């Protein structure tokens, strides 16, 4: 979820004798750990991995704009290409390799059926502007998924086009803004809890709102009294993440919603953690007006090394009229209507506009629908239960060793939060940090948990196992984390050098930011 914010940079720390004793290789490779140069260093502009037919002999009509200067794009043959990317892939950790407990990011198994379905030509090879009569199956997918999302959340409508979670937040806030403007109410403030994802305040600012923080209580929830005290005629909405970024359910959610509504404002729920409650709780029953759903979290579409995401937004009755275009409607004859600008006047007159070209992340809709149909109503409820069970199992298997700041307040939801504090039996040794624990886990073969987020907890470690991990996998992870934590408490200097067994050791992030090298240029490479 978050990255190294500790300002750490590598020192020339004594590379211990053990490693120095390892024999060097002339290639830099170490067995199956293979080095791979950049395409710019191994490719050539006149080499290609694609055979292209000869162009017909007709005159050009390029208006004198021919690109004559060299572009500098290297090519590789097909074999070299396959090898380049296969070698690079082996430098990545992935869910397919092991437990990936990044809190708030929900790295669950990505079923391969979903990949197969998304590649069916009827979905993969259709154009967004084909006549609607030729894409009724695609519109059916959007409609069917929308119906599921509405039923699972207990909400009146859903805007399907947002491209990712943060884009969904934007959609929700714009719907709220449109609803307020429709009643001539120009409120300018959005309230955001301290523990919120960074996207929440950024989104509010991106659409022109002033952002104010609301404090948390000692048990990691929104401070209802402080919230009530701040509510007033200038507040447009409150953005609440529920379950929140501390992995806790906001017990006062209904009271929050009631207070917000009484003040004439709306409740935006960041639904990043919907996976903890799907099938057990409907946000609509809690008074939520708008909530984005990360299809790449709750509904298993792959993260792909950073995207693409998909962030449909469910909307309450009050906000439904303001959803952006396009909208898919089912007609009496069973066919589907794609409501765009042309027909909006007849079918969706109050929509706030358009957020994207075309219709949203179709390739993610097919995957998410396949996942939802596979689980069904019963399986999805089990998903939430197992996700919460797995997280609580981790919480109670580690809270004797690591400080669980909210562990005393009851069960967690889908993720377990720890800090680097001393909770009575010794904190981390002097000079040792959460980052060292994370890097130590890498040597044990794990992707670390989310670190230094949420910001409300010192040296945060946020662990989300998800429901797709077995008990055996959790037990091994617990063993590894306990061992690394004990080494950090004991001041094991080897941990400061971790990771030792990776293609690269700790990287100098300060250098990267101070002298940005963002593109390859001949002769300027750092090594």
């Amino acid at each position, binding site marked *: 979820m978050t*990255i*190294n914010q500790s300002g750490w940079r590598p020192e020339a720390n004594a590379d211990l004798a053990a490693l120095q004793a390892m024999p060097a290789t002339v290639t830099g490779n170490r067995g199956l750990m293979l080095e791979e140069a950049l395409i*710019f260093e191994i490719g050539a502009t006149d080499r290609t*991995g694609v055979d292209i037919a000869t162009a*017909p002999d007709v005159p*050009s*009509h390029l208006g004198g*704009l*021919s*690109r004559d200067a060299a*572009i500098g*794009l*290297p*090519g*590789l043959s097909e074999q070299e290409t396959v090898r380049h*990317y296969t070698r690079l892939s082996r430098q990545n950790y*992935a869910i397919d390799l092991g437990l*990936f407990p990044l809190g708030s990011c929900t*790295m669950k198994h990505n079923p391969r*059926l979903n990949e197969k379905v998304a590649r069916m030509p009827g*979905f*993969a090879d259709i154009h967004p*502007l084909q006549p609607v009569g*030729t894409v009724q199956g*695609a519109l059916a*997918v959007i409609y069917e998924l929308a119906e599921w999302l509405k*039923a699972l959340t207990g909400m009146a409508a859903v805007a399907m086009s947002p491209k*990712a*979670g943060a884009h969904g937040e934007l959609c929700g806030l714009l719907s709220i803004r449109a609803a307020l403007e429709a009643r001539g109410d120009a409120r300018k403030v959005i309230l955001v809890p301290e523990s919120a994802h960074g996207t929440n305040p*950024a*989104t509010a600012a991106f659409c022109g709102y002033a952002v104010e923080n609301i404090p948390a209580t000692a048990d990691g929830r929104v401070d209802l009294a402080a919230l009530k005290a701040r509510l007033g005629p200038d507040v447009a909405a409150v953005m609440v993440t529920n379950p929140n970024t501390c992995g806790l*359910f906001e017990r006062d959610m209904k009271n929050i919603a009631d207070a917000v509504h009484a003040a004439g404002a709306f409740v935006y729920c960041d639904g990043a953690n919907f996976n903890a409650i799907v*099938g*057990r709780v409907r946000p609509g029953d*809690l008074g939520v007006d708008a909530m984005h759903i990360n299809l790449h979290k709750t509904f298993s579409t*792959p993260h792909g*090394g950073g*995207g*693409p995401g998909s962030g449909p937004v469910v909307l309450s009755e009050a906000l439904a009229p303001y959803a952006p275009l396009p909208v898919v409607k089912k007609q009496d004859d069973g066919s589907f209507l794609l409501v765009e600008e042309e027909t909006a006047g007849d079918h969706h007159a109050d929509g706030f506009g358009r957020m*994207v*070209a*075309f219709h949203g992340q*179709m*390739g993610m809709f097919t995957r998410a629908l396949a996942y939802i149909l*596979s689980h*069904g109503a019963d*399986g999805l409820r089990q998903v939430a239960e197992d996700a919460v*069970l797995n997280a*609580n199992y981790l919480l109670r298997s580690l809270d004797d060793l690591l400080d669980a700041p909210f562990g005393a307040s009851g069960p967690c*939801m889908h993720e377990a939060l720890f800090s680097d504090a001393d909770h009575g039996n010794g904190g981390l040794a002097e000079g040792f940090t959460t980052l060292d624990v994370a890097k130590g886990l890498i040597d044990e073969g794990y992707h670390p948990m989310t670190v230094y*987020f949420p910001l409300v907890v010192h040296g945060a470690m946020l662990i989300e196992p998800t429901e*797709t*991990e077995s*008990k055996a996998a959790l037990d091994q992870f617990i063993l590894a984390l306990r061992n690394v934590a004990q080494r950090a408490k004991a001041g094991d200097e080897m941990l400061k050098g971790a990771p030792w067994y990776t293609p690269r050791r700790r*990287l*100098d*992030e300060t250098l*990267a930011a101070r002298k940005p090298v*963002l593109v*390859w240029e001949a002769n300027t490479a750092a090594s």
Partner: protein
Amino acid sequence: MRYLPLTQADRQAMLDRIGAASIDDLFVDVPADARLPGLIEGLPLHASEMSVERHMAALARRNISADATPFFLGAGAYRHHVPASVDHLIQRGEFLTAYTPYQPEIAQGTLQVLFEFQTQVAKLLGCDVANASMYDGSTACWEAICMARRITKRGKALLSSGLHPHYVNVAKTMAKFTGDELVYQAPSLDVAGDADVLTDAIGKDVSCVVVQYPDILGRIGDLSVLADKAHEAGALLIAVVTEPLALGAIKAPGEMGADIVVGEGQSIGVGLQFGGPYLGLFATRHKYVRQMPGRLCGETVDSEGKRGFVLTLSTREQHIRREKATSNICTNSGLCALAFSIHMTLLGEKGLRDLAMLNHKRAVQVAEKLATIPGISLLNDAFFNEFTVILPKDARQVVRDLADRGVLAGVSLGRLFPDETALARGLVIAVTEMVTDEDIDALIAGLKEVLA
């Protein structure tokens, strides 16, 4: 359930460790009246892989896919051949099921790909630097307008009439809320674009001029003069490229003075997918890097002095700067960027240029043939692989009639500009390397029949 590994015995053992009597005890923080006592009514139960596959396949068959019919659609999404190795490689689990590379020691694969991608995009668009991608072309375009506002501290943007109307509508939607002033009018069926109109409108209050290249009608024109005029007034030139393959044949916007070049990268490696996920390209000059939105990958060294890559300049981004960030964007289109980068590597400069010229020459062939049909006239004198023809009647109906005959003939301007009756007879036709001689014959025969 096949994706859930816990057994009942596991669950009981885990509850015992936790000290909870039942699963319900773990949901005690949920208000009692919001706890669903059982399954949500009216929803189907779990299903086997085979039955889900059947259901989805039946839905897929209700679409007419481009591979099953002569196909000439473009207007912001293009059908090109994607080599088999691209899809094979992006399905490697180490790419497909990785997260954002926040732990660089175990994400060098993704990071090196992003560094290579940034370099490829910068070179293709003719710019100094590019980011690790945005959601799509339309959102990248709006982000560019916001970036120009931050740089110039001015709030008025001139949008060319040649800009894709969906991109215009995205910008208009956002501007309603941010207060930016946008100047735009729909295109007219002229052979020349609106460069003169834009040039005259540039004043000291203008943050940027946004032009599409090639534009929505397929027209191409030199951007240099417009760039000079914009710069004289202290404004930026933003160029939007929805068909990046064109830049294998025609000058890059960056070469002609554009300050920010954004684009839709779908046409290289990604596929149509009914409009998404796609790939926003975003490139600019060195001096504006710190005003860029989106993720950036940079080169550095590790503690042994070896070259490596990390995400960098994150002090622009929401997870550090929160409400002061340059954008709220939190993802990129990572897997689509990978597909783009692999396809570009397979092509190389030679393949890119050859493929671009093949597209262009095929389009010239089709344009010449269409122009011989009585009643049809060709709008463009210069174009890449897409052009506009003016039909003797409403193009929307022609497109529907041709679809009924099994030909997907193009995108009617009526679909794109439903309020502009003056454009109703315009049809935008894209011709890529995928179009066969038989497809061209079918288009021509169909048009003759429908127009007769």
